């Protein structure tokens, strides 16, 4: 069970260290891990301490390479670490070969939005410090020889928030699927809408639904995979609109965040509330899939739709 409430909402602000211990631990883990794989092998040998990884759920310690071989799933408790688009693409695409699409689209501050920091400055800083352009990347490639278009979110980019760029990339990915008659697979991992884009972010819900409507008419399969966490605007739009809605085990998924619900009903939330297993029980998921069987399962799904 969770020791600390994971208030993923705070990630939507794009600010670091907000005293949100659970989220901070996950973020640091991912940073360390990313740093580990970009370091050369020679350097790794010299700095063995960076290669150890502690599970935020059960505290089990194993090496990063062991974890990576296990697809970033804790070998002891099956906790699915929060990973990014790079890792999902590696898991899914044959020989890690894929073509990134629409990578040239970047967010900009159209409104001149300033909270604790100007939105543009926030964007510039993330662009300078990471190789991410926005919270969603789109790629086309082969999954066990089946061609597939995958749109995957990066939680590292302002909490995977849904803004104009995600909406546009999603739309173009859908158009690409329509043009090439390819199934569409979307991996969600997001705290919700990007507040710095105000109503423009809200309208992405309608924009993406319009595209799904066209996919639907063209009988193109659309599979939605929900991973930890998936909230707000994503669950209130394309996240929940898959021909199949599936999820990773133990992922926190919902419309309103647990903090808001707790404040509203003034009661503690039951154990397992808003977890994948809870959603499956209530009829909102087709199935839950362990990451190690993800590629196999997606292949099976495409195969069944195609034959």
């Amino acid at each position, binding site marked *: 069970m969770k020791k600390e409430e994971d208030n993923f909402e705070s990630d939507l602000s794009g600010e670091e260290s907000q005293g949100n211990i659970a989220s901070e631990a996950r973020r640091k883990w991912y940073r360390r891990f990313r740093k580990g794989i970009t370091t050369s092998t020679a350097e790794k040998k010299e700095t063995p301490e960076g290669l150890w990884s502690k599970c935020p759920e059960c505290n089990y310690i194993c090496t990063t390479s062991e974890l990576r071989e296990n697809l970033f799933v804790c070998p002891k408790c099956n906790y699915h670490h929060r990973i990014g688009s790079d890792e999902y693409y590696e898991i899914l695409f044959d020989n890690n070969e894929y073509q990134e699409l629409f990578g040239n689209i970047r967010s900009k501050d159209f409104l001149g939005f300033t909270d604790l920091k100007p939105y543009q400055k926030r964007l510039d800083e993330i662009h300078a410090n990471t190789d991410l352009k926005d919270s969603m990347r789109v790629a086309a490639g082969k999954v066990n020889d089946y061609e597939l278009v995958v749109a995957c979110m990066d939680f590292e980019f302002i909490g995977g928030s849904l803004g104009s760029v995600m909406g546009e990339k999603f739309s173009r990915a859908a158009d690409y699927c329509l043009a090439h008659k390819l199934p569409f697979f979307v991996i969600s991992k997001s705290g919700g809408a990007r507040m710095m884009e105000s109503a423009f972010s809200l309208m992405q819900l309608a924009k993406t639904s319009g595209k799904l409507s066209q996919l639907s008419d063209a009988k193109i399969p659309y599979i939605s995979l929900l991973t930890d966490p998936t909230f707000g605007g994503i669950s209130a739009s394309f996240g*929940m609109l898959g021909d199949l809605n599936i999820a990773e085990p133990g992922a926190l998924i919902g419309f*309103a965040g647990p903090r808001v619900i707790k404040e509203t009903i003034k009661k503690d939330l039951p154990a397992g509330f808003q977890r994948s297993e809870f959603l499956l029980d209530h009829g909102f998921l087709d199935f839950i899939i362990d990451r190690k069987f993800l590629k196999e399962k997606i292949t099976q799904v495409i195969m069944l739709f195609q034959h």
Partner: protein
Amino acid sequence: MPQYPNRQFLDFEQPIKDLYEQIDQTKKLAEKNPKIDYSSTVQQLENSIIEKRREITTHLTRWQRVQMSRHPDRPYTHKYIEKMSTNFLELFGDRNVRDDKAMIGGFASLNGQTVMFIGQQKGINTKMRQMRNFGMANPEGYRKALRLMKLAEKFGKPIVTLIDTPGAFPGLEAEERGQGEAIARNIYEMIRLRVPVICCIIGEGASGGALGIGVGDKVLMMENTWYTVISPESCSSILWRSWEKKEVAAEQLRLTATDMKEFGLIDEIVPEPIGGAHWDYNEAAAILKTHIINALDEIKIIPPDERIEQRIIKFGKMGFWDEAD
């Protein structure tokens, strides 16, 4: 519509209250001195009230506009339906869980044409506010709305939605019954509806809770309303990590009808009576009715397939980004 002294005044409406008090005092004087004619004084004060109403609403900050949208005397959905149409046949239930009192709907005659009205309903007193759950619908409310939209579509009747919600209800049971899925489904289905759809923000337009009945051929906003992705209060708490920055958040979010029109995210602003809809329900409803009828006349002549395509294109254009070569 409440009349003075039963009217409620927002802090920036106090000068109007003062004028009402002056009228009261003048009338008392008139009773004491029947020989003196105070009617012109009263008339002058009444004119000053109208002037004050006008003056106050011309310089509202964005936060004050939010306050206006929540004015306790403001008319709600049912009032507009009653004033704009005849033969309202209210329909209940989602055919699944229960009837959600925060979401109302039904057929009515609008200018001789049968339309389906749907909207969030707020309560007019403490008891009713609770019954209406402050205009915050549960999943069954959105599913009720969808059921009614599908009913309208089946019989070729246009749909008019009136939006007034502080958000979809963030409750435990709402999550169990799939609040996200219910809103997502509505947005998806609305964009595909074969009948004309007009949406109007008549009060608060908070996020997915509003958009869940807000996808249409024409989206209108009344003058003293707001519409964006999050309430200024919640935005303040997340981005500024304090509940105290709601005024700043409202400014940054640019959530007024004027802002939204400028961004091209809505189609029309519906003017309100001088000082706001709460000063004259009849006039507010009459203006809204004209705008809805005009919008319907404009879109009902478009063939359904084309109308759906235009809807998808319209929302598809929304957004801003940089594109490097």
